[in-house]
């Protein structure tokens, strides 16, 4: 039997098995889920090969699943991150209720994502897309009680709008081009923006909603923040990348031919990505809940990736693909950090806790590395992504103003990056967090592994470049050469990352040695309460950490930007629709005589107009 089918079977049967074993013994559930994903991942990386294909017929349609370099690249994200997240889940979800349901849906989501990536025909793609969507919906509503206008419904409605737009496009691709195979549709010009322009636009709508592009991003902050953190790592890290996967696919024709219709679409998409990046960032920095902050930040980061994709140039696509992997790594790690804090300290509300650095040093280390990567500061991997985006925008696609917008968003990202670190870990310690312990080992290991990815790609980005280049080949780009450790653009300027990394490490070691050793005997370590407080004395139980309205000046300065609340617009639309429906329902008056009148009146109408209707 085919490798790909076996992996899907492992995942789905594993999901069912995990669901049922929860009734037997709670402790086994997490282990069962983890074992399933380990087997699936191991099987994949051990046995699956590029070029594997599986064709079969299902109900009059011929389906095709296969593995090309482009799919392979995304499977790294899907399986890799999922494996780490499930390892993390073991400790994170301990003691919670309905574990069978949680792990079952989790594994189904992974199966769905895997299926999406290996689909080479549209029907399979849609089927797995839907499975992925409803399985993740089940997880979004996991934490819910009471609230009917839930984030889950918002998520489902937006996803459904996207998915059904996609379905419409698929139906018409079949109608106009006579095929369901993605490769064939591509070569026949289905995505070319020149004719039947609604097809690629609807496909983009479907994929874009999943990738949280403005103005359809409103489901993301709530959904990412309210879902259990171990799933959000996968939700934000891998699931959103499915949208990226699709957008890259849709634009692939444009990348090669650079036709005019595609150019306009790519510009619109690029600006939408840019606006997403800006709005996501500025909303992130006013949040007081660490989870929501990360959620908005994810939206912004996805904006960068979308911008990269829509430039259509070599550096741009590489930037998008590279950032996709890196975002999965650092955002996954950050959500895991938030989860660890939540589990150990009870809340992630930054106005309630602070100063956890002494109690959770390893968690802090992970957070620090991931935040530096997020901010894009050298020598860690995030800088490479930022570099690629700017170079793409400035040197290759001449989109200067968008570069400025991205830079603005990136600079503002420093604000919330710092806020996250400061709000949770720095400042004075809160009384209630006296007994907080470090996160358990099974939670630390995945976090540290993800941080390691961030570190290593900072010095050797070639590790990611090479698979990504192969993926780009599969999309139709010509072969490109990528250095292991240095970056170069088309104007000939290079940046040598290994040198930078070595230099920084050397200076750090030297500086650390000098600073620590010199005057060692004279150094006195004090706690956070021992500060120069200008005559005011610190009292027991007080916490002087500055947490409220941390960026109030910025908020005031950028006030016009904050007036634009997309969430409110959608909510208003939803309310209006509901009122409209409530009114419409009154057609069914409940009165028998009315119904009889309907019938007779309808008869009369038909008889009067029969010549027009039936001819």
């Amino acid at each position, binding site marked *: 039997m085919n490798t790909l089918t076996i992996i899907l079977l492992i995942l789905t049967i594993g999901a069912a098995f995990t669901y049922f074993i929860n009734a037997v013994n709670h402790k086994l559930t997490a282990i069962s889920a983890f074992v399933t994903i380990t087997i699936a991942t191991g099987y994949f990386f051990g046995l699956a090969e590029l070029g594997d294909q599986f064709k079969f017929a299902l109900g009059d349609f011929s389906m095709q699943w296969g593995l090309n370099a482009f799919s392979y690249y995304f499977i790294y994200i899907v399986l890799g991150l999922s494996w780490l997240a499930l390892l993390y889940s073991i400790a994170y979800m301990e003691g919670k209720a309905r574990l069978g349901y949680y792990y079952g849906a989790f594994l189904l989501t992974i199966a769905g994502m895997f299926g999406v990536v290996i689909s080479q025909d549209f029907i399979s793609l849609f089927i797995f897309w839907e499975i992925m969507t409803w399985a993740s919906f089940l997880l979004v509503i996991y934490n819910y009680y009471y609230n009917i206008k839930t984030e889950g419904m918002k998520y489902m409605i937006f996803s459904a709008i996207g998915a059904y737009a996609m379905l419409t496009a698929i139906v018409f691709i079949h109608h106009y081009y006579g095929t369901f195979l993605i490769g064939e549709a591509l070569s026949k010009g289905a995505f070319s923006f020149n004719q039947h322009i609604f097809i690629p636009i609807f496909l983009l709508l479907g994929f874009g909603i999943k990738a949280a592009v403005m103005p359809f991003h409103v489901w993301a902050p709530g959904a990412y923040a309210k879902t259990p953190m171990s799933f959000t790592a996968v939700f934000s890290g891998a699931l959103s990348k499915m949208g990226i996967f699709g957008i890259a696919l849709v634009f692939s024709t444009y990348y090669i031919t650079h036709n005019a219709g595609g150019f306009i679409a790519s510009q619109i998409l690029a600006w939408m990505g840019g606006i997403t990046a800006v709005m996501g960032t500025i909303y992130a920095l006013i949040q007081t809940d660490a989870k929501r902050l990360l959620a908005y930040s994810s939206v912004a980061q996805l904006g960068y990736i979308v911008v990269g994709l829509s430039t259509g140039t070599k550096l741009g696509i590489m930037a998008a693909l590279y950032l996709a992997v890196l975002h999965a790594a650092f955002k996954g790690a950050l959500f895991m950090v938030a989860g660890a804090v939540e589990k150990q300290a009870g809340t992630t509300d930054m106005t309630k806790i602070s100063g956890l650095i002494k109690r959770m040093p390893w968690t802090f280390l992970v957070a620090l590395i991931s935040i530096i990567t997020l901010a894009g*500061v050298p020598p860690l991997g995030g800088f490479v992504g930022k570099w690629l985006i700017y170079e793409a925008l400035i040197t290759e696609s001449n989109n200067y103003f968008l570069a400025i917008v991205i830079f603005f968003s990136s600079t503002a990202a420093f604000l919330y990056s710092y806020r996250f*670190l400061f709000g949770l870990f720095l400042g004075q310690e809160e009384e209630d967090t006296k007994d907080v312990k470090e996160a358990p080992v099974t939670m630390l290991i995945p976090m540290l592994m993800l941080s390691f990815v961030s570190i290593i790609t900072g010095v050797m980005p070639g590790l990611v470049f090479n698979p990504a280049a192969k993926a780009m080949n599969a999309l139709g780009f010509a072969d490109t050469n990528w250095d292991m450790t*240095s970056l170069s653009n088309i104007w000939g300027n290079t940046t040598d990352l290994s040198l930078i990394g070595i230099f920084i490490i050397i200076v750090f070691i030297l500086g650390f040695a000098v600073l620590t050793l010199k005057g060692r005997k004279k*150094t006195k370590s004090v706690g*956070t309460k021992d*500060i120069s*407080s200008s005559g005011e004395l610190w009292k027991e139980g007080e916490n002087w950490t500055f947490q409220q309205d941390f960026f109030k000046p*910025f908020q005031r300065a950028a006030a016009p930007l904050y007036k634009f609340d997309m969430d409110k617009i959608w909510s208003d639309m939803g309310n209006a629709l509901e009122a409209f429906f409530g009114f419409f329902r009154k057609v069914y008056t409940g009165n028998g005589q009315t119904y009889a009148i309907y019938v007779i009146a309808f008869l009369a109408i038909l008889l009067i107009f029969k010549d027009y209707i039936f001819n």
Partner: protein
Amino acid sequence: MEGIGFEILGALLTTILAFVVGMFFGGLNRKITARTQNRVGPPVYQNFIDLMKLQAKRTNIAHGFMGHVAPIWIIIAATTVLMFIPILHDGLWFRNLTFRGDLIFLLYMMVFGSLGMALGAGQSGNPNSAIGVSRGLSQMVGFEIPFVLALVSLMIQFQTTSIQDLMAYQHESGQWIIFANPFAFLAAILSYLGMFRYSPFDIVGAPAELASGPISEFGGKYLGTVMTGGSIFTFVKLVLMVDIFFGGAGNFGTGFWGVVAGLVELVVKTFIVYLIPVFIGLVSPRFRTEQAIRFFWKWPTVFGVIAVLWAVFL
């Protein structure tokens, strides 16, 4: 082997040069300020004395690991950026790592130091530090925009992201870039006012209000290190400005006296550029943070936009 030794020596010399010149510039700033205010003022080498005093303090208070490490970050940021900016135009000395990094890298590296500082300030537990950091970061969003606009306009105009190439252009064509794209210079120098944190943008470390903001809990050897790093960084920023807009230095050949002459030229040029923020700082009151941010988003950004348009269409 000899090459490596040569390089390391060059790096060390560059650092020492930056340190010395930076400290002197700080002293000169205090002297000029004093004279303007009709005082005598401290001697120009006062910063060195301060540094020695700080290193000789009897106790150094360390606020946790991040607080301990933060000054090192600043040193790293300053020296790394220093390595990647060409000090002299030609020549074997002071070449450092100039070919190996470009403007985008420099933009981000300059932030590295602030981040470290912010983290160290955060761990100290002093709310004043945190407020100072918040203001500092917000202001940064303000002044980075025109700065980036200026740099991008230059990148477009000369189709390069390397400072080396910009200097080469100025050297070959004999025209300083300040004349090739004056609006870029305007945008850049205005954003420099924010970067230097002299009035009117000194709300970040307002001494009377915030107990010096982020550095309020740093003392002893830590404060000394911060000061060192800050001085090097001052010099670095000035050299960047000079290299990009004023043709750099080192146009006198490669012999020993040529190098010295080049260095002198560099110091003179940077000092002249330095006077701009100093003089503006002397006569300005303090902006509130949001006023500062708004200021940067108004005229400097407009200049930056004009600079980009200039670069695209001219």
